[in-house]
């Protein structure tokens, strides 16, 4: 067994390097969530406010159940594993930096506690038209846009307006919610199918951006 010795040395070296990292990861729940979140700030921003440069949405203040669900979908491939999903394909490997369901929960809990920041309005839409179209959406997402956990519908009012349009487009074209087993995705996909065009998407996003936080 010739290679045994060098590999032991390598393992000892790697081990000491790895323990250096592991020592940084606290075991106390909230502190660990905060450290895990450091893997997200590159794109989602230091306080989860999102980044248009990275096309990464604001996630600050999204409910824990929804962040957990989406990160898990990215991990398993229910979201972000479609050839035309440029942004989703970037997020998918990042979800795999979380190695256990417990870590997914911890980082999601941390995200949910960050202060909501949906950024400035970035697109022009007809708010009045958006408001009347939003009547359909309110059944699940709430008239005030705060979402409905029982229906697995996330809050919308704290999302960036550009991200809302991007997601409606993805649902409509099947770039998101392409997996038949993804029931919550399928629900929303059907709804997005009823939004006629890009202009209607912009109107909806413009209206949602006016909902009080």
């Amino acid at each position, binding site marked *: 067994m010739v290679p045994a010795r060098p590999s032991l040395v390598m393992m000892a070296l790697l081990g000491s390097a790895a323990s250096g990292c592991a020592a940084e990861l606290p075991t106390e729940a909230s502190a660990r969530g905060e450290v895990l979140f450091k893997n997200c700030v590159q794109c989602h921003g230091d306080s989860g406010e999102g980044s248009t440069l990275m096309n990464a949405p604001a996630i600050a203040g999204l409910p824990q159940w929804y962040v957990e669900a989406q990160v898990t979908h990215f991990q398993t491939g229910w979201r972000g594993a479609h050839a035309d999903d440029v942004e989703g394909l*970037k997020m998918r490997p990042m979800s795999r930096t979380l190695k256990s369901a417990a870590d997914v929960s911890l980082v999601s809990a941390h995200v949910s506690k960050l202060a909501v920041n949906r950024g400035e309005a970035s697109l022009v839409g007809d708010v009045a038209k958006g408001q009347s179209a939003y009547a359909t959406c309110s059944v699940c997402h709430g008239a005030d846009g705060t979402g409905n956990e029982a229906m697995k519908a996330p809050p919308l009012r704290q999302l960036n307006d550009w991200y809302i349009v991007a997601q409606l487009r993805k649902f409509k074209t099947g770039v998101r919610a392409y997996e038949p087993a993804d029931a919550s995705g399928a629900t929303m996909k059907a709804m997005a199918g009823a939004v006629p065009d890009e202009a209607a998407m912009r109107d909806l996003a413009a209206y949602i951006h006016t909902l009080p936080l």
Partner: protein
Amino acid sequence: MLEHYMQQGSSYASQIDGLVWMVLLMTGFWFFLVQGALFYLLWRYRARPGHKAVYLDDAAEHAFEVKWIEIPHRVILICDVAVIIGAITVWSDIKLSAPKHDEVIRVVAQQWAWTFTHAGPDGELDTADDIVAIDEMHLQVGKTYSYELGAKDVLHAFSVPVFRLKQDAIPGRVITGWFKPTLVGEFDVQCAEICGIGHGIMPARLYVETPEAHAAWLANPTHYLAYKF
């Protein structure tokens, strides 16, 4: 033992390994010979109690140079020629000529995923039955494939160690090449050109299948590599 870590999974893997071995053995031979001579001479002519270290005078040095430097130098040049002939042969076999292919597979790299477009049951690319799969590539053992490699955003490199294949992917260009898998199994594909923060976690999986297993996959394809947690 060594074979376990260096599985050869393509028709040309052994040719590339042969070249690497040739270079390794030649340089290894000269390395040990030269270092051996150096250390022997240092030891042989060292200073000891009652002895001064021995140096050459100018006249002796010229004769010494001819014997110890010029002659080996010429022999090394012959080795170089052997390496160049070997390298050009392998290059022309693998890169300059391609055998007739049975099928074309499209490989597209992007931050941070691989999209493989398989020709599907009809064996023709760009038809309705093409199978697009993220981060997984399915091949039939023994078939010759031509690949079309592209990149959507930045530089990437398509590295398939078991094939001994590593090819840069460049945005705006379609680079073609070929491979013929010879070993059934599950192997690694890895991006080998730094491409952003996700570069280190941009692997894909290669499945080389028997004709039966490949037919089963074609009949019931997967569309992305599912990770288990």
